[in-house]
């Protein structure tokens, strides 16, 4: 069961958020804080990995109650999925969402880069993607 899906751009602004049924709504200041915290954590974790290991940044946070998976595209846009602890294959879902982002958002002439995403086509595809996997 999925709780939330976020997209954070490379400067730390939250550009897309999606809440799935069964999850409490976060208020807008919390959401902004989440975006900034996530990108900061991602950067810090790349810095503090011991030398000798590959520095890729934050990938998964798992606990007894939830699992958070963060996938960073080569351009710095982070796709972050929060679900319950026994979900597998989260990175694959995030990668699929990245594909839809590059289609419905980047090829859309009415989208300005690094702004909020408010498009029906993208919403529809994200809904379809996460609904099937539930």
């Amino acid at each position: 069961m999925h709780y939330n899906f976020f997209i954070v751009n490379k400067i730390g602004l939250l550009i897309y958020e999606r809440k799935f049924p069964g999850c409490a709504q976060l208020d807008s200041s919390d959401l902004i804080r989440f975006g900034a915290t996530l990108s900061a954590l991602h950067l810090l974790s790349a810095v503090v990995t011991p030398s000798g290991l590959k520095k890729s940044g934050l990938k998964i946070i798992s606990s007894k109650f939830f699992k958070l998976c963060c996938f960073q595209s080569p351009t710095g846009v982070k796709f972050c999925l929060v679900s319950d602890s026994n979900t597998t294959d989260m990175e694959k879902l995030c990668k699929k969402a990245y594909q839809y982002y590059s289609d419905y958002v980047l090829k859309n002439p009415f989208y300005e880069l690094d702004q909020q995403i408010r498009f029906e086509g993208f919403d529809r595809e994200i809904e379809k993607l996460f609904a099937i996997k539930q």
Partner: protein
Amino acid sequence: MKKSTIYDRNLKLRKEVSASSFYFLFSEIIQYSIRQDIHDLEKQLEELGIPLGARFLELIILREKGSKKETTIVNMLMLIKNNLWPLMFNKNNCVVEQHMDQENIYMIKEIEPNMCNQFASLPRGQCHMNCASFIAGIIEGLLTAAKFPAKVTAVFDDGEEAKAEEGEEKRTVYLIKFEDEVLVREAKSKKF
């Protein structure tokens, strides 16, 4: 050992272009048109398509029709359906119909939502501009060059079949309104 030059290759090239490159280029065309004049987007896209239509006509007649001219409205529309659509989209998925009340209006209906509109959606709440006006311009250019002067507009399909798919993208209908001289000519040629 004779090397094959470009002159030996078949004239009938069947090259395919990647859809993504078309989408990026088209998205940039729309952004350019918006910068010129935001309210007249559809008209600008039509004007861009008109010279293309004339060139398509030459290409189709040379390649596929053996340089024969079409003289009736029905044959011309069949040329658009059977030759132009596969040339542009590699698929033959449109239906040609005549308008019920008015004799000079024909409609080309799409079966699937078309590629111009697939990713170009306006933010929620804004009025809908149809980016398939580009293709309407191509059709208009083709008909005008074939001496069937007409006005072609692209509208979203609001009919009963379209309502069944609420969540999907809307399909487009191209309304082709022929000028009077075309109908007069048709009527005269039918007399003989």
